């Protein structure tokens, strides 16, 4: 630790003194002459014996609140002919003079500084050995928008924003259960990022909240800029490409996870909220499944399972069949493929890898470009290059179709982060099946399965409820059963009963009365 740090820690550990000048000097030393630090001087009740100062960060604090503070301390004080001497403690001033929603005495310099840098206003008054910390957070926020990475047709349109309080309010509005808890903690020595752990006390899996807190406490890092930092520091399988922590921008997803007995981790300054424990199959499920009728929900879920399989194995299977197992292709199809490949100078594996990489380039370029140009990139990339590459005989039309279908399938997976994981798995599968055929494909796929089965996420098997097989959870696995049939929560929840008996609507019989 540097000497500057040591000195800072020493200053922070001190308490406020009754001398205003001393206190102001300490604040000046700690905060320096930062351009955004504002100090507003005042006289308590208009009395020049009791000078004071308001410290706040310009831009973080709401000026109208600061005006209210000043009004209370100067104007109300003198209007009411209060004698400053009659209010000897900060507590007294808070209770008798202040009109702000949240104002509390503050003895430690550390607390005062923490309050100022997070947007609160610190009021120092001559003669008091405590300061008054008034909540005055009020900065410009992004408005609530629909999350662009998680679209759905039916369902709420609101998404999380960068403000942690707005985000927790979204969830509180959905679950008006008094047992919904938000436990606060701070991570990051320099960023001092607020983190809230949300759970419903009588539903959450036993021991889960303690485990989450334990893992968060373990983190010693200077900065948390996004929930991805936390995710990587608390996940169970840090080396695995699979993500064992679900992340979402949708409040309805978080609410439903909490109601299943899981824990959500809110991180300030990011709209992405983490949910643990996580199961692999959740990445295939979309909120639409539950908002549309169950026939539709089940059908589209099946489509997404198909997309999962295609996006993982289709190029590998094509490469494997075309370069090793020609006898497995129906004759007419074999001839069509052979005729398309007649002039292609590359082996099919190389052709597949080339096209996959070309597509990844296009995807990445389209993502990074400014939006209007991004469209042009995708048109040039997909249409023109695709067409020209086939016409020039560089790639076969079949390969273009295979890669295009694969990519479309990977976009059909609702969770973008997990579709990225599948994208990474595609390459070893592709190379194995292009060099060893079915044998290589089976080996790598088997290794992949073993790996996925070995992972746990916060004490729960990653592949559950498929393995270990949980009969009652199957109602929401391959198919989405009707709401009136899903009368149990997942097995790890404390209280698994979630609805009354016989919830299936019955025909109203037309009897009198």
């Amino acid at each position, binding site marked *: 630790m540097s000497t500057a740090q040591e000195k800072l820690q020493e200053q922070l550990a001190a308490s406020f003194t009754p001398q205003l000048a001393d206190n102001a000097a300490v604040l000046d030393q700690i905060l320096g002459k930062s351009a955004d630090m504002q100090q507003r001087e005042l006289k308590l009740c208009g009395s020049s014996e009791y000078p004071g100062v308001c410290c706040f960060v310009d831009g973080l604090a709401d000026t109208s609140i600061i005006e209210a503070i000043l009004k209370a301390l100067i104007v109300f004080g003198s209007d009411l002919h209060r004698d400053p001497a009659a209010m000897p403690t900060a507590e007294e001033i808070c209770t008798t003079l202040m009109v702000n929603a949240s104002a509390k005495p503050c003895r430690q310099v550390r607390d005062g500084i923490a309050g100022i840098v997070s947007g609160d206003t610190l009021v120092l008054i001559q003669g008091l050995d405590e300061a008054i910390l008034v909540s005055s957070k009020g900065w410009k926020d992004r408005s609530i928008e629909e999350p662009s990475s998680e679209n759905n047709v039916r369902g709420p349109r609101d998404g999380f924003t960068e403000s942690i309080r707005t985000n927790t309010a979204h969830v509180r509005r959905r679950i008006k259960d008094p047992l919904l808890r938000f436990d606060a903690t701070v991570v990051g020595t320099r960023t001092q990022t607020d983190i809230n752990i949300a759970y419903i006390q009588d539903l959450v899996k036993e021991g889960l909240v303690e485990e989450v807190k334990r893992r968060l406490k373990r983190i010693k890092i200077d900065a948390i800029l996004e929930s991805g930092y936390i995710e990587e520091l608390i996940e169970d399988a840090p080396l695995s490409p699979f993500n064992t922590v679900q992340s979402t921008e949708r409040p309805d997803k978080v609410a439903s996870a909490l109601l299943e007995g899981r824990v959500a981790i809110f991180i300030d300054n990011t709209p992405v909220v983490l949910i643990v424990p996580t199961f692999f199959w959740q990445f295939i499920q979309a909120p639409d499944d539950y908002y549309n009728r169950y026939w539709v929900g089940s059908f589209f879920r099946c489509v997404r399972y198909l997309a999962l399989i295609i996006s993982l194995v289709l190029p590998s299977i094509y490469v494997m069949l*075309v*370069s*090793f197992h*020609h*006898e497995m*292709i129906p*004759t*007419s199809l*074999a*001839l*069509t*493929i*052979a*005729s*398309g*490949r*007649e*002039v*292609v100078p590359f*082996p*099919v594996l190389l052709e597949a890898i080339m096209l996959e990489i070309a597509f990844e380039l296009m995807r990445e370029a389209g993502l990074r470009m400014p939006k209007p140009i991004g469209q042009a990139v995708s048109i040039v990339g997909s249409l023109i290059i695709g067409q020209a590459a*086939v*016409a*020039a*005989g560089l790639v*076969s*039309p079949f390969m273009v179709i295979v890669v295009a279908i694969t990519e479309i399938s990977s976009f059909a997976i609702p969770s973008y982060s997990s579709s990225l994981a599948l994208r990474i798995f595609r390459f070893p599968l592709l190379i194995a099946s292009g*060099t*060893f*055929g079915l*044998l*290589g494909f089976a*080996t790598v796929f088997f*290794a992949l399965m073993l790996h996925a089965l070995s992972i746990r996420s916060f004490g729960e098997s990653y592949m559950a409820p498929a393995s270990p097989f949980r009969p009652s959870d199957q109602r929401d696995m391959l198919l989405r059963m009707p709401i009136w049939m899903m009368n149990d929560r997942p097995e790890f929840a404390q209280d698994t009963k979630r609805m009354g008996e016989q919830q299936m609507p019955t025909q109203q019989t037309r009897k009198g009365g």
Partner: protein
Amino acid sequence: MKRAAGLVITLIILLSQTSCFGLRQINELAIVTAVGLGLGDKPGTIKVSAQIIRPADARGQTGAPSGGTGQPIYSISAEGTSIFDAIRNLGRVSSRRVYWAHNFLIVMDEDYARKGIKDMVDFFTRNHELRMNTRVAVTPDLPDQVVSTITGLEVVPGEAVDRLFQNNHVVGRAPASDMMNLEEAFLSSSTEPVLARVQLKPRGISNKKPEEHGSLKQVELGGAAAFLGDKMVGWLSVKEARGLLFFLEKLGSGIEVVKCPNNDGVMSIEFKRARLKVTPSYANKEPKFGVRLTTEADIVESGCAIHLDEGIRQDAEEKLEQRLKSNIDSVIDKAQHRYHSDFLKLGDVFRNKYPEEWRVLKRDWNRTFSDAKIDVEVEATIKSGVLKSVGTEIR
């Protein structure tokens, strides 16, 4: 970490030791769709001719221009002292590795078949690349000609012949023989093989020169070749092949043309839902077979110009029965008295009912079969005249 690395290295070593590394691009293969077997020019040699697909021409322009000649197939032949030797010699001519898994048809020369097909059955069932659903046929023509003829509507001629076999029950004039049932009959002690007969006939009409009728040769599927052991013993005509199909493939329907009772005209009768039942019996150490064919029938074309009344119907039924009986009789006669070969699978039926007696009889079954008494009974019922019961005549 060390263990994981060790595991990966072990897996890679294991995989590379399996010798499954057979990477071949599909466009580097010469895909064979029909193969002809015949006797070579030199005595003791075998001539193999292969019909190989030119994918670019067989599938038109998919993708980049590929410079085709317009011909969908490329046919080559080679000779060798054994089938495998001859096939390897194909490699002297073919620029691509000859690939057999998509083969549709094996055509044998009559002379080759008469010398014995033991080698051929062995080779085509032993090789892992070859499939058991490949059609097998015998031709009186040269197999290289059959193989290199562009025939049928299909772009790939081998596929066209395969379709002929698939639809053989429509015409009902040749058995749908493939490697599977050839080997089955070949290995069985109770039956003998019988293969379809294909022949080149000038049936195609050229679009450019229609006046030269039948200038294009086409492959015709009709008739059969009967075998005793592994040697071909003789042909079965198309009529006998129909009788054969009742035994081998439970032929259910077909057309027979009979004379009108009143004039010189003819009427066509379509028999449907035909069922052949063979009942073996064993008395006085002599096997006996009762063959009973029951069928329904419709009159589908009538040139008789009379109402189809009860009398006409009975008359037509009798004639149809005679026709069908003569079909069956003729093939039984050929099998028993001409070729002395039980390719009708009557031995199978007998063995299933009398397994104990079969043990004694199987040693000399073909002779026992030749002497066996076979009663043929046909019962036909004409159900309708389709949409008309009156005759068609100008009033």
